């Protein structure tokens, strides 16, 4: 049995030995972390562990006992607001990478003070996107952060 805070609620889960967090979450209908690579390279399984972006595909669920786990479902208003800026910039395509990106942007907005293009690129480097070419995403994130000031 593992107990952790998931999107603001304390939850307990029975897990198998060696179970990864992505599988625990998806089995319990939290589907925003998705499986893209199995080698922690692509970013689509990103979750926040104590507010820091981590790949849930390589994180044993047992390791997050007593920790705070946030998925995009837990930052719904933030994600909805960000999506409006993605829409304005035409940065939406297949969207498989979007929830992970939203979480990293959230972490960046909590952590960094002076965010410029390089900061955004740095936070997004672990989020592969094969659709957009990245520039529209970067612009959307920048405009979103400006809009929040």
């Amino acid at each position, binding site marked *: 049995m593992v107990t952790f805070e998931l999107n603001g609620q304390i939850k307990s889960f029975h897990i198998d030995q060696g179970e990864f967090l992505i599988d625990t979450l998806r089995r319990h209908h939290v589907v925003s972390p998705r499986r893209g*690579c199995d*080698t922690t390279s692509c970013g689509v399984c990103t979750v926040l562990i104590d507010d820091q972006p981590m790949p849930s595909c390589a994180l044993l669920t047992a390791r997050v006992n007593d920790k705070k786990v946030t998925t995009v479902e837990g930052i719904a208003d933030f994600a909805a607001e960000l*999506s409006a800026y993605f829409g*304005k910039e*035409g940065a*939406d395509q*297949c969207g498989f990478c979007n*929830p992970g990106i939203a979480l990293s942007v959230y972490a960046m907005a909590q952590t960094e003070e002076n965010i410029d293009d390089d900061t955004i690129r740095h936070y*997004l480097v672990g989020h592969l996107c094969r659709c957009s070419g990245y520039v*529209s995403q970067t612009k959307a994130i920048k405009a979103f952060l400006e809009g929040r000031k």
Partner: protein
Amino acid sequence: MKTKMATVNQPHASKDGKGIMMGRKAYTDDLAPADALILKVLRSPHAFAKIKSIDTKNALKIPGVECVLTHKDFKRNAHTRAGQGYPEPSPHDKFPIDEYVRYIGDEVAVVAAIDEKTAIKAIAAITVDYDVFTPVTDFEKAKNNQTLVHPEDGIYEMFPIGFDPKKNLAAGYHMEVADVEKTLKESDVVVEESFYTQAQAHVMLEPHTVNAQIDYNDRLVIHSATQTPFHVRRIISQVLEVPLSKIRVIKPRVGGGFGGKQAIHGEILAAKITLLTGKATKMVYTRKEVFEATYTRHPMRLDLKIGATKDGKITAIDCYGLSDTGAYGEHALTVFMVTGSKVLPLYNKVDAVRFHGDVVYTNRTPAGAYRGYGAIQGNFALESIIDMLAAKLNMDPIKLRQKNMIAEGETSPIFEIMGEGTEGTAMYMETCKLDYCLTRGLKLSQWYHTYPRKVHGDKVRAQGMAIAMQGSGIPYIDMGAATIKLNDDGFYNLMVGATDIGQGSDTILAQIAAEGLKTDLENVAVYSSDSDLTPFDAGAYASSTTYVSGNAVYKAAKEMEKMLLKEAARVLKVDIDAIDFDGETFKSKDDEITLKDLSNQLYYNDEQKQLTATASYVGHKSPPPFMAGIIAIEVDKATGEFEVLDYTSVVDCGVPINPNLAKGQVEGGIVQGLGMAAYELADRTKNGKLIQADLLNYKIPTTMEIKTLTTEFAASYEESGPYGAKSVGEIGIDTPPAALANAIYNAVGVRITSLPITPEKILSAIKEKENMQ
């Protein structure tokens, strides 16, 4: 006719962006039943072998294992997984699971178990005794090799495509206009070079995924991350001998495709086991499986000869191509033909042109459809050799292009000769703003400010460019259809077979419908790609959706408008001509009724009926989008390392239905093309094993490589397209390889002729050049 448009040519946000960003259930894996059996495939460790015996007893003993199927459990129905129109121009050379394995990753057995852990355990418990053969791994030695990749009987072509498995040939092609050899001999200058392109991987972020179940009406329902749901249904029916009427294929949200999901992959296995057990099944490919056991781009060697007069008139182009289709011949002929047909017409004023070659089988991961589809390979070769010719003529490569490239109102004999697997369609370029694209691109990139180079010590800044063309669907073959349904309260459903795989086709097709019905985009609810509920569409490939499916939506909207006017005329008791409809209200001289009231009356009160308009469209031509692409780089002469500073694209795709989404198509294509040009290695060991089979080792561009992209559209209006549009899905990918090769030449004077263009290749070419001096 150009008119000001309210919804089309506006940068609306994707209709589905918010729900996707918020992580809602949308993709195939999200929609699988919780109790679905998990499927795992035992894959071949050998590049070429025959299964002597296979023992599944121990696997079946493991608690939780439902079944294990091998080649013995499938009827030997030869088919092609290509996912093309029927009859397919690809050889029927694949069996569901075969006694032969033809590449590392080929299917040996499939396990269904209660969970992934059990399935993996069962896979490990299967023992196989192989008769291992020497594989054909070098595609340049495949033709007439002693080893035959397909020695078996029962494989065939649907019509002549040059299929000759006894010579390891999946397909072949030859066409010639005038006498190329004679014309080359008589040319003042001839340049000759061979170019190599690699087996690029698609790397769509969502791996191939399928789930299958039997519904309460005993129908097989398949959710698949596919680009071609109707082709999936047809192929499953053919292979498993299930009537089409028993199969429903639903395409949920798809996490990218780029051609990699045009073919079917796990669908047959999932369908088979669900039919066998009556239980739901789910199969999600691992990333390693996506790399090793789906598709790649066709690697090619292209031998080019180009001739010109002293003053720079190109007289002849001769291209021999050798294409590697890997173990199966999916898209073998058609990709190869596009290498000629969507590249060579760029220089349409030649006296003679020849395109010919072979598509060979080898024992490596099959090649298949991939954005660009042969054109990117051809463009790399042709647009590289154009710069080489310019250098030999001592002429500005821009001027050489401007003198020889295709222009509005012109044609090329190639359009009529070469189609996709068949003869082509004669057409004139009613829109071709290539000259503008080039001129504007030079201005935006400040080309002559840098050209040919600016040197600061070891750092050299330079630019390189290429022009490109693509198509808009496959004329007379691929059809798209749309249904518009009027609901009460006056909102519409748009049902299309067209397959949104992330490119935003649901949004742009709704924009076309909204424009036609003069309504808001929010008033059109779209459903795409459910083989039971939406009309047919060939699928998302061949740059067809905007032009072909878009024209179907345009026609359906016009048809719906006619129906609405007829009903309004009846209610208002006037002639149709006497009504003015602004999208919300029907007005006659003395009376009016709102669409809302009319639709409510039609549902509940008076002469009740359902208004539904269905239209279909098949192209009579394939108007090409055109573009000029210019890359700006900084090369370090000491290391061969380079940085991409900017990529300027100016594109003629007619009227972009949604400028933001069209830009997304172009920029996404550019970056994927840059990946092929510069970063993406697909090496194999001598035994045919892919070395870069995960995302740690196979490097696609990240935010660190891509800093600036400059993208613009030319003012252009294609009369035959919906609201003036041509398609735009592929054109973006074509130019980066040649543009980068030309930029490297401009920077450091070495010509790289094989992809990817790595620092190692650049540095060793620089050293070689220095040694020769």
